[in-house]
């Protein structure tokens, strides 16, 4: 695994140390002014820590979010000692993509007309630019897939990558997520009432599942896991942290951008999977709760319905949330999967990763030690 986030930069050891420390990286945003904005908090990445991971010749022209992606993917590749080639693929999950480049591209046009348009910036406005940059950096020539998804982009990328390995598209996948903070994104979400304090009420902060939760706090960063076919990983003597025992995702048809805790998924693969689990099947659960009251409440309701016995245990009701530590961003889901893998490796039994997003996309991953 490899990560570049507001708390730490590094491989599996760095992720484990940051999780053990549990210190929040959320603080007032410094990268851009927020005068007159109702929100002020974020979890920012210190780019000086990333620079050392970048190649001065090949990476200096990359956009910032591509640099985050390439750095984290390099760390993951180094951590797992994998090599590039036609066997290696990538799945990148992102909530927002490179909106900073989109704004830069458009702003230049508004200032100078067609002459201001940069052919170098334009490709970054397409959301697969991060996967493309990482594929070039690592010589990953199997399938590279980018998934756009709110709240659970990283978890979904890991789950889709596991399916691609199982489906024979690649024997090895680097999978995770990335997002970055930018002024236009932050201000717009705050204006739309999508960040803490939502509707302007209460103290700003990230308090998942708490009675006074009032919205998410944005973070940024890139986190990736290396997934391999088990036999191939054993054959090359890889350090195996854990096995993705099962990964499923589904949809609860819900109005776009809405969280509707009374909505349930009657036929989804996630529900079928969870209904077969008993409390003995797993030790704890990482959830996607990020302080957004609608999403937090929906997740609790779904887990209570699908895991009635297990959901009474601490660590499951409410689930564990990493959002207060790293802030909400596309890489957070990969950090949830990483935390589950490290827990499983420490003998804490199989660990469930669960997520629900506004709009109804739902996911469940069961991660355990390989038998």
């Amino acid at each position, binding site marked *: 695994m490899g990560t570049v986030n507001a708390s730490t930069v590094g491989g599996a050891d760095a992720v484990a140390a940051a999780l053990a420390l549990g210190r929040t990286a959320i603080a007032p945003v410094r990268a851009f002014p927020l005068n007159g904005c109702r929100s002020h908090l974020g979890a920012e990445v210190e780019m000086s820590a990333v620079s050392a991971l970048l190649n001065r010749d090949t990476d200096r022209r990359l956009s910032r979010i591509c640099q985050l992606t390439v750095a984290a993917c390099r760390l993951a590749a180094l951590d797992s000692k994998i090599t*590039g080639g*036609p066997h290696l*693929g*990538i799945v990148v999950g992102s909530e927002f*993509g490179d909106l900073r480049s*989109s*704004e830069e*591209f*458009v702003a230049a*046009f*508004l200032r100078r007309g*067609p002459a201001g*348009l*940069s*052919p170098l910036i*334009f*490709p970054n*406005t*397409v*959301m*697969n*630019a991060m*996967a*493309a*940059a990482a*594929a*070039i950096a*690592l010589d*990953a*020539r*199997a*399938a*590279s*897939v*980018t*998934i*756009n*998804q*709110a709240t659970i982009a990283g978890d*979904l990328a890991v789950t*889709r990558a596991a*399916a691609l390995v*199982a489906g024979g598209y690649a024997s090895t996948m680097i999978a995770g997520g990335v997002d970055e903070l930018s002024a236009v994104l932050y201000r*717009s979400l705050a*204006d*739309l009432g999508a960040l803490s304090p939502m509707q302007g009420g209460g103290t700003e902060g990230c308090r998942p599942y708490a009675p006074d939760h009032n919205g998410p706090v944005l973070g940024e960063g890139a986190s990736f896991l290396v997934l391999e076919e088990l036999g191939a990983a054993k054959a090359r003597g890889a350090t195996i942290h854990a096995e993705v025992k099962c990964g*499923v*995702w*589904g*949809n609860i*048809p819900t109005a*776009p*951008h809405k969280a509707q805790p009374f909505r349930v*998924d*009657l*036929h*989804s*693969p996630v529900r079928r999977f969870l209904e077969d689990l008993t409390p003995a099947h797993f030790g704890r659960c990482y959830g996607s709760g990020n302080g957004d009251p609608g999403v937090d409440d929906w997740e609790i309701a779904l887990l209570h319905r699908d895991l009635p016995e297990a959901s009474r245990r601490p660590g499951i009701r409410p689930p564990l949330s990493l959002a207060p530590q790293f802030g909400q961003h596309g890489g957070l889901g990969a950090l949830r999967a990483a935390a589950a893998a490290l827990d499983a490796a420490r003998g804490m039994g199989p660990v469930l990763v669960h997520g629900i997003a506004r*709009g*109804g996309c739902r996911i469940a991953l069961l991660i355990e030690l390989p038998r």
Partner: protein
Amino acid sequence: MTRIVVSGLGVVSPYGVGVKTFWEGIAAGTCAIRPITLIETEGFRSRIAAEVPAPAVAGLDLSRRRSRADRVALAAAREAVADAHLTAQDRSVAALLVAAVGGGMLEGEAWYWEEARTGRRSPRIKALRSILPASHAETVGHCLGLGGPKETIIMACASGAASIALGADLIREGVVPLAVVGGVDVLTRICFMGFNALKLLDAEPCRPFDRDRRGMSIGEAAAFMVLEDAQRCRARGGPMYGEYLGAGMTTDAHHITAPHPVGDGMIRAMNLALDAAGVPASEIGYVNAHGTGTPQNDRVEALALSCVLGEGSVPVSSTKSMVGHTMAAAGTLEAIATVLALQHSLIPPTANLRNLDPEVPFDCVPEVARPASVEVALSNSFGFGGQNVSLVFRKG
């Protein structure tokens, strides 16, 4: 192995609404590339595109509060689901994979333009709720009651083909019995300005594989198909337009915008697709090419096709010559064109092709559609970031 059929089709294209309208347009070789009406184009070299006609969009029975892209996506997906005769029960277990790039950026740009030019807050900010590509899947999934796995796939111009490949995998793996897959993109200022900045647009309607080609033309469309376990489809008496045989997906890992100089990734994608389909190259009777009309793409694609299929062995045409490059929708739209070509035994032409490039050693079906009974066909889609997806279909 589970056999997968195409049991429903839906299209909103530069010809208008409906699969029938689309097929009639490409079968007639009608070029729908015209002067742009949606956005300002003054000062740009190329000022044309294949827009979905305004009356067609206005005639959609859908709220105008939705973004243009959400509306055309929903219309096309609705047609596909109705065409497949899916019940509410069928839909509740169906996966949904939507390919997208631009999202609701057209309306998001209008908000940004207004705030930047006036310096004041604009009420258009609500448009930002639908700006991200995932908005289409949320809209379609909600309105059609699709309860299986839902994904928004972004692989640039190969996205639409990838949504088919990834949706089919969910059926093969037994996760779902059917999937609604497709893609959508409408014209945006960023896309139009970006391709102009890259000097990849022809000032005239694009001329794929022509010696004098000067670039591509942008198009807009939404295209969806229903993929279904063949046994299930047969049991419920659903339509079968064709059979999906397999796909190959690769990455060049070479350059962010340029294809690999000798088409390494394209060749691997086509070979992987043939392997997955279990058919030899000699069985391919038609190729719906990526065929953008840019000098570099068409040359490298022809080289890759020669490598995989042998020079001159098979008719190759580009439907982008008629409907433009519809970005994330292109892969699905062209897969639908391929399936319809198999069904109607008619190969759609490459419009505007007058002087075949000597570096393209294929019959590119110039100007006029050609009757041909083809059993198996290949559809290619390539994109920014070196994304390559090839799909193989058999006549239904």
